[in-house]
């Protein structure tokens, strides 16, 4: 059984006991434990089920490489699936449950897959479930989906908050082991701005666990001194619990700081996503131990050798009383020695190498440990837990020589440098035959914005496999990075680590060498996804020869550990199957993040109120209080309508229309874009921008204008006012101000840069109120202060003055066909002016109205709306707006585009009005059908609806739309295809003039 030892444990505080629960069982651990350590201390080796075969799974590792031990953590708004127990710090009250089983972890029905595993090899689903056709969606897929998926889906809104922050440095050091710390010291002493990231809560990496000696003192002392020195430097920032997640172009690094994972609910952000911009990046991310491929290597109790050591040394937890060590290298002997020194039993070390020499084996022998050289594990015995191993000749086919009883197996297949950050932006790798691993190829680094190296690898991450070598390598890497940054490093001695002489490891990819197919079908490569040696060999046999094909066909390395344990082993098996060298086969691409990052952290602060900027007019709060139903218009919110108690939105809109047409309506038009264009060449410029002529507009007058893009398509419209000789004010649509301002600046800066024109976007300087209806003038007269009579301020003119004491600019323009004034006041007076209008207008029947009433009234008048009548494929000519297009001008933006065949065609669809013969509202978006079908069998069409409303004024449905040869077809009856509630139908409508109301403009010209 696994248990807590009576003494020891570098990281735990035995005085601080913490209670937690697993599958409802209440258990105890210590402060400083990981959840994995605490579970093992309570003999909870079985923690989950695998993805495909639902095999029992135990803890394998002690870090982020853990493939098996994933749990559901927390509950409600703090529920989190797939939480890795090896990287979860224990806290008081932690609640965890195991995943991917039904009904229970101990008894899982899904394990039936395990018994038919032979029938479910890699890619079996590509070869079956083909017939009968409907069965995939209705039968097979639901079963597969339900049995896959690991953790449960959260149900609630996240109770925590997240944030992001920017940081900048010369050198970013990722990894707080001795190599990273040494690199940071070199850079910090040189005065460089340095940030050091360590993914765990502790520094020192392997050296402190393995009892390395640096400069004659324990590695712990070196680490403490380094942290103290770094802490004293103002140019150095050291961050624990912060994982370097991904390296992106131009020195951009994402790092995930787990601020409050271990103190949930304390009010701090759960995670903080750091967006770091580094001059150079130094990756000192260490290495990950590889499993060995022997039959039954996935049983609970089979663990990585160094991880076993981690549990013993850091947490005083023994994974088993009797642990057999299986290895192809000397390093694993450290585990045997550590176990023995902790008073535990090590029945044997099974070493695949025939020739076992070196200091560590000698020490193990001296401790009386049996060493089986040239042997391998034939098979691990046991069901939900290891009960023993049978051993065989490594060179043989697996004939059993002996059986050894044990309750844990510590395996080591060698070490693979963590090259993720090196590789994210294209750093290349080289195969190191001595250590049988890929390491960064310094000659082919990822490149920075200046074409120089962006990332430097250091220490074990660079293949420097001993502490002494790692320190020297990190020192040199830091110096090289500083030199490239143009920062002078100070002279200094590399700390010296005592070196234990290790004999070379020997690559072992299959144990035993000549294992039978039956054994290979039980050798796990990817524990979580259940990919075995036999699966990779099958993929190769079937022609999935590229490493990407094999990965995708078998799902090797695609589990939540992203193949940290399985990739190299799988690659080696593939290379063997293809009879190629490993480097020829190559690796799959490393993609960020290094370990999974919570989506909430990536979304950052942007949720709820600050999900997106919400633009508010000065009257926004008034609208909300008035109970307006708001609609998004760009990032603005505009009142759609102001429903009164008991009214539907539709009723409210109709009331607003009628009231405005009969009495007085007030509209918040502040969102309308307002751009000042000024300069000696401003007139010339506007003549290029608009289809019409603006240079000839007299001072004091307004003119409606259209803007097209270079393709000729209509992009915006609005009223332009001539302010003075050199100054025009251009109104744009509500959504269009920023876009049109940018469009103006683009042409002024990049094409006509010698023209003397300045622009200023003053949209938000003014609140704008449209005072609309027969009583509009009465209201303004009551406010008083300026002459707004027909004579003094005729249609399409503007004037400055005061109204009710407010400084105003009044535009006599109309988008409703009513007598109408648009009044601009400084935004800081906007609300007061709006309220003054309501107060003064009460006696004239003033009511606010919203965008829908605005739309209906403009449709009644046949005015086009950008975004309704236009969709990016419509030219002004389509909308019968030829009157607003100058025939005389040689050039304007869009003119050349409109001359192209398709745009100049006489067969284009043109604007008309439609009235359903039965008076109903024609469905929005309906098409006018034409006879027959096209070559693809689609019904021919000849027009479509662009706007359609019930007109409260006319008490019938009205619509505008585009129709082939439309204006020539007045009075004709056409047929619309309709489609509602799944039922296709038709509707007949008459082609009419699009101006439905007050065609002669009697109402507005009063």
């Amino acid at each position, binding site marked *: 059984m696994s248990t807590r030892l009576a003494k020891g444990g570098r990281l735990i505080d035995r005085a601080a006991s913490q209670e937690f629960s697993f599958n409802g069982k209440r258990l105890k651990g210590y402060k400083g434990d990981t959840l994995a350590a605490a579970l093992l201390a309570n003999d909870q080796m079985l923690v989950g089920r695998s993805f495909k075969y639902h095999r029992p799974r135990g803890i394998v590792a002690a870090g982020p490489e853990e493939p098996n031990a994933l749990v559901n953590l927390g509950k409600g708004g703090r529920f989190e699936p797939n939480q890795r127990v090896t990287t979860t710090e224990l806290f008081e009250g932690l609640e965890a449950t195991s995943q991917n089983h039904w009904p229970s972890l101990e008894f899982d029905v899904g394990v039936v897959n395990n018994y038919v595993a032979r*029938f479910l*090899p890699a890619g079996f*689903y590509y070869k079956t*479930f083909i017939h009968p056709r409907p069965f995939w*969606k209705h039968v097979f897929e639901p079963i597969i989906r339900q049995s896959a998926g690991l953790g449960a*889906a959260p149900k609630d809104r996240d109770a925590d908050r997240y944030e992001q922050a920017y940081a900048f440095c010369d050198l970013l050091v990722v990894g707080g082991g001795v190599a990273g710390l040494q690199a940071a010291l070199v850079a910090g002493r040189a005065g460089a701005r340095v940030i050091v990231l360590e993914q765990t809560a502790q520094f020192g990496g392997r050296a402190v666990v393995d009892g390395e000696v640096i400069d004659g003192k324990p590695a712990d002392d070196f680490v403490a001194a380094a942290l103290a020195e770094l802490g004293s430097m103002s140019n150095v920032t050291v961050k624990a619990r912060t994982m370097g997640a991904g390296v992106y*172009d131009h020195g951009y690094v994402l790092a995930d700081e787990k601020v409050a994972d271990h103190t949930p609910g304390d009010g701090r952000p759960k995670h903080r996503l750091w967006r770091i911009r580094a001059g150079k990046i130094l990756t000192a991310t260490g290495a990950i131990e590889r499993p060995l491929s022997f039959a039954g290597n996935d049983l609970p109790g089979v663990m990585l050798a160094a991880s076993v050591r981690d549990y013993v040394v850091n947490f005083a937890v023994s994974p088993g009383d009797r642990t057999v060590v299986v290895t192809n290298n000397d390093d694993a002997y450290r585990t045997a020695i550590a176990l023995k020194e902790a008073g535990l039993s090590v029945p044997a070390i099974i070493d695949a190498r025939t020739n076992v020499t070196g200091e560590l084996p000698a020490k193990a022998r001296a401790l009386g440990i049996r060493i089986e050289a040239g042997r391998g594990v034939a098979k691990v015995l046991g069901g939900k837990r290891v009960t023993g191993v049978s051993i065989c000749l490594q060179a043989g086919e697996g004939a059993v020589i002996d059986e050894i009883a044990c309750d844990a197996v510590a395996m080591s297949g060698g070490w693979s440098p963590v090259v993720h950050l090196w590789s994210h932006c294209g750093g290349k790798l080289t195969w190191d035959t001595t250590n049988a691993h890929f390491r960064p190829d310094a000659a082919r680094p990822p490149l920075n914005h200046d074409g120089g190296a962006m990332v430097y690898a250091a220490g074990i991450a660079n293949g420097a496999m001993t502490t002494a070598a790692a320190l020297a390598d990190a020192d040199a890497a830091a110096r090289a990075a500083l030199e490239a940054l143009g920062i002078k490093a100070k002279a200094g001695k590399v700390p010296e680590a005592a070196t234990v002489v290790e004999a070379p490891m020997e690559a072992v990819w299959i144990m035993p060498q000549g294992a039978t197919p039956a054994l290979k079908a039980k050798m796990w490569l990817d524990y979580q996804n259940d990919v075995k040696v036999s699966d990779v060999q099958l993929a190769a046999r079937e022609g999935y020869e590229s490493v990407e094909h094999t990965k995708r066909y078998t799902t090797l390395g695609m589990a939540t550990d992203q193949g940290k344990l399985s990739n190299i082993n799988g690659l080696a098996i593939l290379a063997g199957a293809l009879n190629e060298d490993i480097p020829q086969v190559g690796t799959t691409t490393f993609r960020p993040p290094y370990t999974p990052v919570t989506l909430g952290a990536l979304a950052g602060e942007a949720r709820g109120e600050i999900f997106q900027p919400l633009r508010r007019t000065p009257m926004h709060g008034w609208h909300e209080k008035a109970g307006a139903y708001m609609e998004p218009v760009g990032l603005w919110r505009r009142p759609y309508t102001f429903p009164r108690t008991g009214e539907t939105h539709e009723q409210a809109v109709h009331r607003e229309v009628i009231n405005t047409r009969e009495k007085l309506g007030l509209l918040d038009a502040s969102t309308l874009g307002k751009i000042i264009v000024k300069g000696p060449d401003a007139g010339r410029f506007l003549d290029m921008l608009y289809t019409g002529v603006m240079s000839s507009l007299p001072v004091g007058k307004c003119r409606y204008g259209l803007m097209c893009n270079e393709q000729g398509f209509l992009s915006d419209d609005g009223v332009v006012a001539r302010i003075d000789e050199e100054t025009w004010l251009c109104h744009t649509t509500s959504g269009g101000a920023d876009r049109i301002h940018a469009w103006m600046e683009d042409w002024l800066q990049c094409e006509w840069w010698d023209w003397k024109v300045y622009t200023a976007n003053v949209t938000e300087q003014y609140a704008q109120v449209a005072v609309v209806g027969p009583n509009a003038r009465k209201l303004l007269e009551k406010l008083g202060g300026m002459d707004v009579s027909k004579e003094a301020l005729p249609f399409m003119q503007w004037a400055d003055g005061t109204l009710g004491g407010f400084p105003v600019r009044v535009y006599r323009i109309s988008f409703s066909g009513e007598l109408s004034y648009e009044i601009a006041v400084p935004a800081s007076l906007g609300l007061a002016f709006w309220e003054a209008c309501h107060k003064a207008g009460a006696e004239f029947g003033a009511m606010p109205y919203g965008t829908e009433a605005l739309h209906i009234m403009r449709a009644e008048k046949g005015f086009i709306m950008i975004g309704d009548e236009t969709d990016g494929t419509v030219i002004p000519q389509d909308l019968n707006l030829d009157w607003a297009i100058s025939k005389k001008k040689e050039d304007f933006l869009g003119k050349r585009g409109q001359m192209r065949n398709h745009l100049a065609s006489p067969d284009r669809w043109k604007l008309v009005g439609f009235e359903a013969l039965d008076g109903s509202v024609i469905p*929005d978006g309906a098409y006018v059908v034409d006879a027959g079908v096209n070559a693809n069998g*689609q019904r021919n069409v000849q027009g479509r609806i662009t706007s359609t409303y019930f007109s409260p004024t006319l008490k019938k449905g009205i619509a505008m739309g585009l129709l082939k040869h439309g204006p020539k077809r007045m009075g004709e009856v056409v047929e619309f295809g309709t489609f509602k509630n799944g039922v296709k139908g038709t509707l007949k409508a008459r082609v009419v003039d699009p101006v439905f109301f007050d065609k002669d403009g009697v109402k507005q010209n009063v």
Partner: protein
Amino acid sequence: MKRYSVFAIAREALRYHTGWERAWRSPEPKKEYDAIIVGAGGHGLATAYYLGKNFGITNVAIIEKGWLGGGNTGRNTTIIRSNYLQDPSAAIYEKARSLYETLSQDLNYNVMFSPRGLLMLAQTHHEVRGYLRTVHANALQGVATEWIEPARVKELVPIINIDGPRYPVLGALYQARGGTARHDAVAWGYARACSAMGMDIIQQCEVKGVRSEGGVVKGVETSKGYIGCKKLGIVVAGHSGQVADMAGFRLPVEAVALQALVSEPIKPCMDVVVMANTVHGYMSQSDKGEMVIGGGTDGFNNFTQRGSFHHIEETLRALVETFPMISRLKMLRQWGGIVDMTGDRSPIISKTPLGNCFMNCGWGTGGFKAIPGSGWAMAELMAKGEPGPLAADFSMWRFKEGQFIDESVAAGVAH
């Protein structure tokens, strides 16, 4: 070709699966072919498959610089839909979608087409009008879509935050037979079928030049030597401009990066595909349980297969707001692909200035869902030398005429 079936698996299981044959051959190139397709992605392989199946042309080589299916075919978010607005788009995407329905049976390879339903959320009134227009257009185009109200959206997607607050869901454009398929399997299935027809799939073979005589294509120079051909099809998304250059003409295409990501797998919680275009994000759940997420493209030319990370953040902000429960899921893996974009964001399936040389490119962010239809139309174009009705509108000369196929008009997006 040995047929795949549950019986074949049972038979093989008894001998530890040692008897499976190669899914496709890896031959050396012949001196000449009737047709060469450059690019063994989904579109190229589908083109070859339908050349053989529909026109009996099987003396075909498919030449691939890397590994078959290793480009955008294996990097997309696997969405299949045909609810397009414009007639030419609706026609080719619906053709593709209907071919997907029986593709597993046609190829004897389970591509896991899962018509689980696809929703495009309307979150502004403008979007509502756009989708109503699409629904009407689709009804006349023979594409089965419908407009559904918020309550039905919530029923189909229980995890959605229907009430906003920022962008309440006002309804959705729903295509019940839209869905997903297993992207790799599409490439592998076509490859296996092509190989079985006697076609040569030549991987790790880079095209270095295009040889022509009198304005007509003669063959291609490759890293494995010169290979002659009577007809040449260029189907190399992302690198279309480079190969077109070799053939001596310029394309109205730019290459940009498009990114996607998956979360860690969880138990099934979303049965349909959801696209939220107002906030720029889309999401589905794979059969493995991963949430598959995509968003927008970068705005600059890029061949690195790495995009800019802020696009991922924008997408996730939108999706966390739309589906609050995903906040505590984790991003497992993110990646990018290079897509080529034309002036109207619609594809090109076209003759070219070079005789007997044909181009298929410009699928932008919408390539995967089109694969069978694109292959079908391209095969017809190559076999007959003239486009059939499916390809007719996708000529590379349409830009000069101003005859766009613009899908952005109905608040739709091209992916």
